[in-house]
């Protein structure tokens, strides 16, 4: 097993732990994305569904671990994700016959729009400024870069692939950073202004807490990712053989990426796990994708995990899709040009 395989090992285990935790902490009245009422999760059938789900999740993880020495690439992760999705859909199919009608009463507080989240706005500006500064620095020092620039780094931070210098390749990390920034900024807007705030007093409190929590989380993520892409972009100006300061940055980043998601899931449940759901089951595809043209919300609370998902019937989701498409295609184009 090489270093890259070893790096993937804890990530697979942590993903399995997260998938294992999620159904133990369902949102109020939901079970595997089906409106079943709160008591169903504790019933004999509810517990049997969860047991089978967890068995499948861990079996998928075992399969991924078996594949790991053979391939440190996407295959083990794909195997785990595929089995995890199958486990979810299977559990959902078993829960579906126990679905109940969601309450027909909806409530809304008659108050004006709260003031804009200033902290998140400042974080957005700061993270964009970091990317802009990195872009400017590269533009001004383009000639100082060597003819062949590093295009890939190993886990140790040592450059292991080089290509001829072109403006596109030099700007690649900044371009990815800006597209990621746009995606997160759009999500922040959707969470702040396009999510539902109504519901029972209990649900309203949980929804407010969830909105604030994810707003902060995304703002923090925005800062971290912008810093990371700016760092990757300007690193060849300092050292073309390895990532500048990679001795401590790579381990720190690894710990952050491993511990961060688990911490976020546990904190989320503590803050906002009680929020119920008043979206009809019929508008959820596989309990993962919400498509409801008659509902004006831009984003709704996820049913298959933590956070929010777009209402795919709204053009807002198409804008997000376009950015994701650009994130996939533009870097490939910039990399292969010249």
């Amino acid at each position, binding site marked *: 097993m090489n270093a890259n395989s070893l790096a993937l090992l804890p990530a697979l285990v942590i993903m399995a732990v997260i998938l294992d935790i999620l159904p133990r902490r369902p949102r109020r009245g939901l079970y595997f994305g089906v409106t079943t009422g709160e008591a169903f999760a504790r019933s004999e059938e509810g517990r049997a569904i969860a047991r089978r789900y967890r068995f499948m999740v861990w079996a998928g993880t075992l399969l991924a671990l078996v594949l790991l020495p053979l391939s440190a690439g996407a295959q083990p992760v794909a195997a785990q994700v595929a089995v995890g999705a199958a486990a979810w859909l299977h559990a959902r199919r078993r829960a579906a016959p126990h679905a109940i009608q969601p309450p*027909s*009463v*909806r*409530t809304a507080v008659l108050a*004006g729009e709260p003031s804009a989240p200033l902290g998140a706005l400042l974080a957005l500006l700061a993270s964009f400024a970091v990317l802009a500064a990195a872009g400017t620095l590269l533009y001004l020092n383009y000639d100082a870069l060597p003819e062949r620039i590093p295009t890939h780094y190993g886990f140790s931070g040592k450059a292991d692939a080089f290509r001829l210098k072109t403006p596109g390749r030099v700007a690649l990390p900044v371009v990815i950073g800006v597209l990621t920034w746009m995606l997160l900024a759009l999500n922040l807007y959707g969470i702040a202004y396009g999510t539902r705030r109504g519901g029972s007093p209990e649900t309203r409190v949980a929804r407010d807490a969830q909105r604030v929590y994810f707003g902060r989380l995304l703002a923090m993520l925005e800062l971290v990712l912008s810093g990371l892409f700016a760092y990757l972009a300007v690193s060849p100006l300092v050292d073309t053989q390895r990532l500048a300061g990679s001795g401590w940055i790579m381990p720190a980043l690894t710990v952050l990426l491993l511990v961060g998601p688990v911490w976020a899931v546990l904190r989320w449940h503590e803050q906002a796990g009680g929020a119920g759901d008043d979206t009809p089951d019929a508008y959820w595809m596989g309990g993962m994708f919400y498509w409801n043209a008659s509902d004006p919300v831009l984003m709704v609370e996820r049913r298959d995990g933590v956070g929010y998902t777009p209402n795919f019937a709204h053009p807002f989701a198409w804008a997000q899709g376009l950015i994701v498409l650009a994130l996939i295609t533009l870097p490939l184009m910039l990399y292969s040009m010249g």
Partner: protein
Amino acid sequence: MKQPPAIAIDLASPEAVVRQIARQLRQFIVEGALSPGDELPGVRRLAMDLGIHFNTAAEAYRQLASDGWIEVNHGRAARVCKREQPAAGAETVQRWGERLRALIADTRAAGVPARRIRRELELALEDLKR
């Protein structure tokens, strides 16, 4: 600080959603839960929170605005208006009395005991005195 009231609609009710919204808002204004100048959620916000179409929320606001209960300006928040109390004519008062008696008769026919109806009326009277 005064807590803003919450509106509740029932999608299963035979009463149209537009009417449910307009009726409750009017009730809040009359009872003083909403005062002149109070800001209301925008049409988009109200529609999102209730999970209804924009046009439904907009129609409810339009009806209330045309009756002088609220003012809605494009690009600005909707606000509760200071409304002059119209002087009710004898015919209006008579019609109200008839509607009230009809409502009481319907309620009794539905099996609600007379003392419960009296209690509710007394509570409504108490609200009026405030």
